[in-house]
Structures are given as C-alpha cells and as structure tokens.
C-alpha cells in the first residue's frame, strides 16, 4: 500500500509506486499492446524527414489544429457589451463547450444560453426555440441586450434569424424595442476570429443602421472620439486595461467596443456578477459618430472595419502589436487621429522597455523560435522576436490565410533575422511536430496544447496564446503597450534562464556554468 494519510499521494506520485507500475505492466497482456521494438521504431520514424513529407502531404485529415469555430468568437465579442447575454441558436452542447472553454482559460464564469434545438427542430426549424428561448432568457437573466449567433446545426437547416427574432418580438418574447442584434456564425466557415468579426459588425450594425429596420438609421455627426476594438484575445483583461490606461494618459476621447476586461475579471466578495462592465449600449450607438475606428487585430475585424469605413470613419488596423516599434506605430496613429500628443510619461515607459531589451537581449539574440497561434498574435510576436534579434524559424497559423502569409513574409523580409524563416498558413500542430523534429529550434511559443509538442520534441514551451489552461492568471497581464512588451520580454527571458539553469545543474559535470549572475 502506497497511500498515506499523513502525506496524501496525488495521481502524479501515487501511480509511480511499484504496485501500480506492476499492474500497468500486467494489464498489457489484455491490450494487444504493440511490441516494444516495433513501437520504438515507429516513434523514431515519426521524427524523420520521410514522415514529415508524408505528414505535409495530408489533404483531408486535420490533427491538433490551433483554431476553434465561429460561435466561440461570437460569445467572446458579445460579453464585451454592457449587460449582454449571448444567445446561440442551435444545439445546446455547443454552448456548454464555449462556456467551459472560456472558464478554463479565464478561471471565471461565462454566461451564455442556447436555444436547445433537438431532432424536431432539425425537421421543423427552430422558430419555437427562438420564441421560448428569448422569453426565458429575458425573464430569468434580465439582460440589457441579447446577442444572437448560430451553431452549425441552425446554419445547415437554414434558420432565418431576422424573421425568427421579428416573430418572437411579435409574440411578446421580449419587448419590441429590446436590443437583439444577430448574426450567422457557421462553424464550417473561417474560425473563431471570423465569428468575432461577424458578431462585432452585427452589434454595430444593429445600433448604427436602425435596429433591423425598426428605427431610422443613425445619421453620423462626426466627433473627435476614437473607437477601439480589441479582437479575440486571451489577454483581453490585461490588454484592454492597458490600452485604457494609455488613452487616459494621452487624454484621448475614446470608446472601447467590446470591452470584456471586467466581466472576465470579477472580484470574489460574496456576490456573483453575471454581467460586469462592458461597452455601454448608448456608447456603442454613439460610436457611429466617432472620427476613427482602430482595430488591434486586423484579421479579427476585416468586415467590422470595412463597415466602419463605409460609415465614414478613418480606420486603422494593427496586428496584436507587441514590442517597441509596433507600440510606437500604434501610439503615433492614436496621436495623429486624436490630435493628442504622446506624453512624457509614456515616452519614459518606452525608454524603460528599450533599456530592458538592451540589458537582456544577449540571452535571446540569435535564438531560434517556433511559434503558432491566431493570425494577428503570430504577426505581433514575430515583429517582437525580430526586434529582439531572435529568429522566428517556424511561424504557423491554422486559421492563417494567404493574406496573413504575405504579411508575415513582409515582416521577415524586412529583417536580417528573418532569413531562412518559414510561414505555414492552414497547418496544424501535427505539422509543427514534424517541423520541430526535422528543423529543431531553441524555443516554442504557443498555447497550452503546445505542451504536447514540448513533451514529444523537448522544445521548451513559452506559453503565449489562447487558450492557456494549465498556467494561471497570465491573462491579467497585458502584452500590449510598452508595459505589455516588458511582460512578454520577461516571460521569454524567464524560460531562457530556466532552461539554461536546468541544463547546467549536474554537480561535477556541467555545473561550472550554473552561474549566479546571468
């Protein structure tokens, strides 16, 4: 018996005791287990160039992709508005998945309802589910707005959201003037970033263009304010707050569109807040009068920005800006659009970041990195790595488009550190596994799923991305702004130093390099 009441053994130590090790060995007799030699030769084969070629020849199978489906992005965008309940029309299991996914990342509740369509709705359509669902959600959860999106089930059977919501309102599910923006978010088109874009655009369209034909469209009276859209971002809590801090320092008149920094960071004080913070609905409507709309993530907002431009806004798009130059460009654009100069305080923050890079870049310079994630995040990180003198050898986005690929190439081409680096749009983490075996790098940057690559290829993982399930609270710290770049730099450096220490700590063998000062 290995278990002990004084020092209770957890799964990670309990099952290493001999009685369990023996049990596992004996169990193999019933498993038809692959003989050890055959298994080992297969393991070795998966590391080869031959396997990589076979792997890259895949046309249909996707293995361990780094992307999710549209409605996840829809929920992300919707909870950024004041008192807004996301309502996903279709099968109910999807909503259980989105809520779990966000809660595992943010360690926060995520409220969202489903219209719970089943077989009968598949045959007759989900109109009754919409009518009952809106009425129930409205009465139970007292939202200020219900933002409707769809699962692939509702899309395949072709439910008409506009007509359904109109009918539901006629039947009294919600008051006629109650805000119910809607958008179609088929899971078989694009990815979660597409769903974010569709939902953000639908909410703005709802307020700016006459609430689905029930009111006259707003007439734009240009003002000097600026709209900012964050995009789908695992660091929304930290990043949104950082942008607001910078804008306050600059004195910019702004509206954050889709601000989920409060709803995903509520206090534990004895009280559950289903809704918290978010863009006020009247501010979302008034945002039509803004001078300009800025997106921090271009590929999350392609349609939204086109729509804002059509309304007469100046638009500016960034790609998850991280680092000195990217932050410079962002702030200079904000300064230009707002007419507000960048204050000395921010200039000093910039100087401190440059100082930190100068202090530390010797430990990053020339190191090879592989990275994957959403299109904008990978662009932002690539820019920063090049700035640090690192070589981003493999850059992969499962939801990357040819446009994205061209954009990454442009970054690489502009830097001497970009030579010999490669870009992989539409590939997955099983492709990345082959890349890491056949063209090894020093570090891997990615989300939690990257730990499987770390285990297999022994490439140290620096966790930056979404989702991060197995490390806590990093979403509270920004990656944007000079302060955010500082956080990113420290994240990278900590791993570099940990790896160097771990590599030099064998007493009498390698520990001459186990330096106290680095």
């Amino acid at each position, binding site marked *: *018996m290995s*278990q*002990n*009441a*004084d020092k*209770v*053994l957890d*799964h990670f130590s*309990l099952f290493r005791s001999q009685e*369990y090790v023996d049990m*596992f060995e004996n*169990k193999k007799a*019933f*498993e*038809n287990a*692959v003989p050890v030699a055959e298994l080992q030769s297969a*393991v070795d084969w998966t590391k080869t160039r031959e396997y990589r070629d076979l*792997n890259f020849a*895949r046309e249909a*199978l*996707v293995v*361990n992709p780094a992307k999710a*489906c549209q409605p996840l992005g829809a929920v992300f965008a919707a909870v950024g508005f004041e008192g807004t309940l996301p*309502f996903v029309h279709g*099968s*109910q*299991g*999807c909503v*259980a*998945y989105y*809520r*779990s*996914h966000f*809660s595992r990342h943010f360690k926060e*509740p995520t409220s*969202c*309802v489903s219209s719970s369509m*089943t077989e009968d709705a*598949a045959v007759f359509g989900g109109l009754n*589910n919409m009518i*009952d669902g*809106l*009425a*129930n*959600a*409205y*009465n*139970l959860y007292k939202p200020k707005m219900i933002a409707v999106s769809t*699962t*692939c089930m509702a899309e395949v059977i072709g439910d008409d959201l506009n007509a359904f919501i109109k009918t539901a309102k006629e039947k009294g599910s919600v008051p006629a003037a109650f805000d119910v923006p809607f958008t179609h978010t088929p*899971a*078989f*088109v694009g990815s979660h970033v597409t769903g974010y874009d569709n939902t953000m655009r639908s909410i703005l369209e709802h307020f700016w263009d006459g609430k689905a034909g029930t009111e006259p469209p707003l007439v734009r009276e240009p003002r000097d304010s600026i709209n900012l859209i964050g995009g789908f971002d695992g660091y929304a809590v930290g990043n949104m707050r950082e942008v607001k801090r910078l804008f306050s320092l600059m004195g910019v008149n702004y509206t954050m569109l889709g601000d989920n920094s409060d709803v995903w960071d509520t206090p*534990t*004080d*004895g009280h*559950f*807040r289903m809704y918290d913070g978010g863009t006020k609905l009247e501010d979302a409507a008034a945002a039509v009068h803004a001078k300009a709309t800025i997106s921090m993530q271009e590929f999350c907002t392609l349609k939204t920005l086109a729509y804002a431009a059509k309304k007469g806004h100046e638009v500016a798009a960034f790609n998850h800006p991280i680092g000195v130059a990217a932050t410079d460009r962002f702030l200079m654009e904000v300064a230009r659009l707002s007419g507000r100069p960048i204050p000395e305080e921010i200039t000093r923050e910039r100087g401190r970041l440059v100082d930190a890079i100068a202090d530390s870049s010797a430990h990053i310079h020339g190191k090879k990195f592989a990275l994957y994630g959403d299109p904008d995040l990978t662009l932002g990180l690539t820019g920063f790595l090049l700035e640090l003198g690192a070589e981003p050898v493999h850059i992969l986005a499962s939801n990357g488009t040819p446009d994205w690929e061209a954009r990454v190439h442009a970054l690489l081409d502009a830097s001497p550190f970009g030579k010999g680096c490669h870009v992989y749009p539409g590939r997955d983490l099983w492709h990345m596994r082959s890349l890491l075996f056949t063209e090894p790098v020093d570090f891997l940057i990615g989300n939690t*799923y990257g730990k*499987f690559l770390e285990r297999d290829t022994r490439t140290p993982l620096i966790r930056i991305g979404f989702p991060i399930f197995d490390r806590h609270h990093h979403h509270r710290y920004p990656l944007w702004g000079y302060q955010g770049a500082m956080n990113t730099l420290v994240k990278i450096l900590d791993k570099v130093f940990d790896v160097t220490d771990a590599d030099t700590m064998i007493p009498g063998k390698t520990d001459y390099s186990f330096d106290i000062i680095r």
Partner: protein
Amino acid sequence: MDLTLDEAKARNAEVITEALSVYPDKTAKKRAKHLNVYEGDKPDCGVKSNIKSVPGVMTIRGCAYAGSKGVVWGPIKDMIHISHGPVGCGQYSWAARRNYYIGVTGVDTFVTMQFTSDFQEKDIVFGGDKKLDKIVDEIQALFPLNHGITIQSECPIGLIGDDIEAVAKKKSKEYDGKTIVPVRCEGFRGVSQSLGHHIANDAVRDWVFERPGDRPVSFESTAYDVAIIGDYNIGGDAWSSRILLEEMGLRVIAQWSGDGSLAELENTPKAKLNILHCYRSMNYISRYMEEKFGIPWVEYNFFGPSKVAESLRAIASHFDDHIKEGAERVIAKYQPLMDAVIAKYKPRLQGKKVMLYVGGLRPRHVIGAYEDLGMEVIGTGYEFGHNDDYQRTTHYVKDGTLIYDDVTGYEFEKFVDRLQPDLVGSGIKEKYVFQKMGVPFRQMHSWDYSGPYHGYDGFAIFARDMDMAINNPVWGLAKAPWNAEQ
C-alpha cells in the same frame, strides 16, 4: 443555525416556489416537474427527467456527441476517434476530460489528440463522405499502429445525408477487416449527453461485438475474470479500483473505457461478471452482454470506505470463498489507512453541508463518501439522469433533500444562495459562480484536476481535497473589513 427537518422541508419548498416565480408561466409549469423536496418514504425522487431542456434557461447539459466521443469512446486509447464535422466540437473537448492512460501518444495511443475532418462550406454542400474516405487513408499512412477508428458524428453529418456507415464498411474491407466504427452521435439527437452514451453503446454492439475485427485476441479464460464497465479513469480512478479487484483475487480482463483498448472491448464477452460503476452511461451494453452472452452484471460504488467495502463484498458474492476471503482481506488491509484518513479529516469536516449537481452516477454515488467524513448532502441533481437514476438515488438521500433535475443556472444560484451549503460539487461552468459568492467548491467531473477519488487510495485524496476546499483561509477574506456590515 440548524433547521429542524420540517423547517428544512418548508424552506426547500419555498425556495422552489421562489425560483419558479421568475419564469414565464409555460416554462414555470415545465420546470416545476423537475424540482422537488424528497419525501423519505417514496420510491423515487418525485421529479421528471430525461426531458428536453427548455430553450434560453442556461442548462448545464451537453450533447450526444459529448456523450459518445467525450465519454464512452474517447478514452479507448489505441483507436483514433475522428470528430467528424466542423472543428469546434473536437477542439473544446480536446484532452479536457482527464481520462488517464498509458501509451506513447501519437504513435500507439491517441486519447489526448484532436482528429477532425474540419468541415468547410464545400463539405456541407457536396457532402463529406469522400473526405472521410481520404481521412482513413491518411490515418493509416501516418498512424499505422492504431488498432481501429471511430467516426464521431457532429451535427451536420445527419443533416446533410452523409452515409458514414457505407464509408466505414468500404474502408474496413480495404484495410483487411479493420475495425472502423461509425457513430451517429450528432449533437442534436436526444436531450443531453445521455443518448450519446446509448448510441455509443449500440455502436460497440454492432461494430465491435458483431464483427470480427482484424486482430483477434486469444487468452486462457479463468473463473475469476471480470470487466470494469463505466469507469473512465478520470485522474486514475479505474486504476485505484482495479488494484483492489486484483488484490482480492479477481482478474480484470477489460476496462471500459478509461485506459481501455479495442482488444479489451473484444475480450469482454469472456468475462464471468461485468462490474458496472457508471450505470447511466453503460447499462445498455451490460444488459446486452447479459442477454447475448449470459454475463451477469453488478453495480458497485467505490466512493468512500463504507461503500467500497459494501461493493467488494457484493462483487465477491458472485464468486467462491477464495474471492470472498480475498475481499475481507482487502477490506482489513486498508482499514488502518481509512481510520487514519477519517481521524485526520472528519473533525475538520463534521456537520458540513454539501450540494451536488453532476452527471452520470455521482449525484448519488459520492454521498456515502461525504457521510464517511461526517458531512451531509442537502441537495442533489442530475444533468442527464433518467427515472431509474432517481429511483436508485432514494437509497442514498435523506428525507427533505432538495432535488433538481437539469437545473438551470438561475435555479442553482438561487438554491445555493438560500440553502447556504458549506460546499458545492459541480462542474467548471458552475465553479466560479459559487466561488465568487464565497462558497467553497470542488469540480466533481474532473476532480478539479486532482484524483483519483475511487477506491481506498482515492478516498484519502477525496478527503484531503474536501478539507482544502472548505477550510481554505481565502473564504475568510472575501469581505473587505471596511464593508464588514454586509
């Protein structure tokens, strides 16, 4: 302040009325049937169950795909489970359920991987059968040591008229009778995960038991062969169970499905007894094996020393004295450990009140473990239970317990707010709601990333975890001292 039984019953009835008062009439009528205060002398819990969730209420339930891929099939380690349809379903369920297993992932085992056909618009328009055909070829090329493939249907498959059965048969023939299992677990089927379990059970029957497969296994049967059915090895649960069965002299020839393999599914008709933990998700195949192969099955409960001992004896009663003595030996061996665990934790947990809301078997099965620690379960309910679950629940719950079937987010929050338990045990979607309210919480699906909780080794961890949740100093810090009047 402790209420009398009558006061507690009155309070619970009142809480139900209050919760229902907020719903539109039609919904209130429907929900009323799922909520009740248990009357101690009744043969069931007095609630309706396994009925469609009401739209828009924030049900905690999932779907048939989650029941099949996520629960039943997903843990079979040497098979590749294709999430067939758009990317999301497989992504959100990827490696999230902690079905532990031994194997080299990506080479001979595949549980914590996400294989998807990543449907695009053209697949919806033109159908996905050709893509599926090619996917099987690509799996064979890249993962040649896989022992079989399952096709886990997502919503669109059934709606666009794909014939995955035809593809499965064709590809099986091309690969020398390889086991390829089409599963019709589209998420819109049924009312919850539950139908997915049933469909998955039926798929084992039709595509594993009734077809030969390409790698028959043979072994010498013994009189003591049993199969563990309905243990998903979350945090190692099936392992801390298996070790006890083997210690008492039984031979475990299969685990369904945690750390299980295709060969083990195929072995099972040779078992002398099927021992069933999660009745809800695997009673179907157990009944089938009883009818078809004459294998008896027995339900057991490995949570907490009282139920473990009771179950070991119940299992042993199907065998000879050798096994019966073995059971007594095992119970005696672990008694000092159990005494030490209870001596350590019971004083810290005595009298604490618990509310549960989980799936499968746990809304009843874990009650004994809490009681072993001197705790009391004052409310419980099932995400996707059926009437037979609520009947079985009466053996566990006390008179006056609040029962809630397919609880809504609103109801659960309201119930906890009014009943003020010392601990809530439910899922990830509920965890942070209650912690914000200052109520200690443990996830009772994933064991909050701890476990195992089964067996004697698991009970020590269970007791430690409940103590660390309830007696966490953080709960004394929730109120700011300058807001002390609240």
